[in-house]
């Protein structure tokens, strides 16, 4: 088992430990949502690993339509479980990007907080650029200061994304 998969397993075990305690129905529903998200995240990450010519290859493979549909069906219940992955340590980049992509698919204003978190400097630049797009899609007005600040970001990708998004305000 590799390090990224071990991180995910820890997250799954964390959910299980909480799920073993007696709960009221609302909490049970939240834990069920959390378990669904954990399962989807683990499956999506495992799809990124393959072998070619006896060599292990790691590529980002987008989640399936069914996985997106499941997350969208959970709606706001999926936001908190997805947000948890943004703070996972150590960050592997792909998991946080999956979380951002799922948050963007949900797309409402409840995703703004986690997306802003995903834009923080401790995230992989691809995750940050995606998060900036997500903030913009959820609220052009909320995104404006982030887009403007990103014009002088240390990442070329984030700067370019900011320029592209700024053009869409005009």
């Amino acid at each position, binding site marked *: 088992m*590799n*390090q*990224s998969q071990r991180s995910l397993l820890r997250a799954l075990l964390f959910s299980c430990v909480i799920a073993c305690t007696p709960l009221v129905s609302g909490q049970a529903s939240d834990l069920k949502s959390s378990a669904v998200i954990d399962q989807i995240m683990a499956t999506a990450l495992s*799809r*990124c690993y393959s072998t*070619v*010519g006896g*060599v*292990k*290859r*790691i*590529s*980002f*493979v*987008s*989640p*399936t*339509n069914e996985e*997106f549909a499941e997350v969208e069906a959970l709606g706001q219940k999926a936001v908190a479980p997805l947000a948890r992955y943004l703070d996972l340590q*150590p*960050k*592997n*980049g*792909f*998991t946080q*990007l999956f979380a951002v*992509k799922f948050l*963007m*698919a949900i797309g409402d204003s409840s995703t703004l907080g986690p997306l802003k978190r995903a834009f923080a400097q401790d995230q*992989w*630049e*691809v995750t940050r*650029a*995606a998060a900036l*797009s*997500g903030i913009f*899609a959820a609220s052009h007005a909320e995104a404006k200061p982030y887009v403007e600040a990103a014009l002088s970001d240390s*990442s*070329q*990708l984030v700067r*370019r*994304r900011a320029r*592209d*998004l700024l*053009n*869409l305000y005009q």
Partner: protein
Amino acid sequence: MWIDVGKLIREHVPDKNGNVLPANLTSGPYELRDLTNKGIGHLFEGKIVYDKTYGHVTYGCGSCCGYNAPYFWYNPLEIPPGGVAGNGVYAYDACSSSVDDLSDLYWGTWTTANQSIATVDYYAYHTGVAVGATTSAAHASIQRNFRPTCPVDPTAPGGNDNVQKPTYFFSPSAVHVATPPVCVQEGATGYFLDVSYYVADSTSARVSQSGMAPGENLGDGTGWHDAFATPPTTRSDGSFDDTPNGSCYVTPGHFCAAAASQSFRLTNGSTVFSIATNTTRRTCTDGISIVLQGNPTAQNKTYTFGNVQ
């Protein structure tokens, strides 16, 4: 409105730009312009002199001004499928040598010839109903540039409308991005790119429409991935990104392999469009090559970063 030109000269009254008329000025041309009423001017001119101490006036009528044939802002107007595109009317003012926007005179008169292709509202916003071509027309009376009378004549400009068929993904650029932490954690090396795309129609015109979902198929049995793009649906300019595109390998030294080729489609509402663009990819421990094909030749492209030999 009275203008005492003699007083303007004598008292050196500056205009809005600070310019004054010369003190020895005795004659010169002038023109009057109606800044409020476009299309049909409401001005007429008369002259009278009540003090000839400093000069005189030769009577005569000023020549009128009018517009050349009006025309649409956009002809053809490209309308995204299920989307909205606005149009309007310009006309050339022969006196000021400028183009005036007369759109408001034509509001409420717009029609399209085939409403199963496109419809148009009061303010000339066109909605694409189905892929295809039709025409639009609008009408209004405006003052024409036919001197000396500059008659108010009916005009009926027309133009073509194309409801676009998304056909290609064109890529303006790609940038190399940092290797994801997962590769470092696994002891792997590789190259990753962010590839920018926008949707183009069968004539290579950009389809500027938000909310269209690009999909990719990697031919690996996992089917279509209709939210693979970032963002999952197009921005208002029809753009999106494919990111991260690449691989890393857990092996020492230089190693390359073919990566899954990409086929594309685009879903807009309930309509799925086949996209002619496709890619082949070769990813290495120290480089990447992505070949975009299926487009018109000028839009086919190869992105190569690092060592892919």
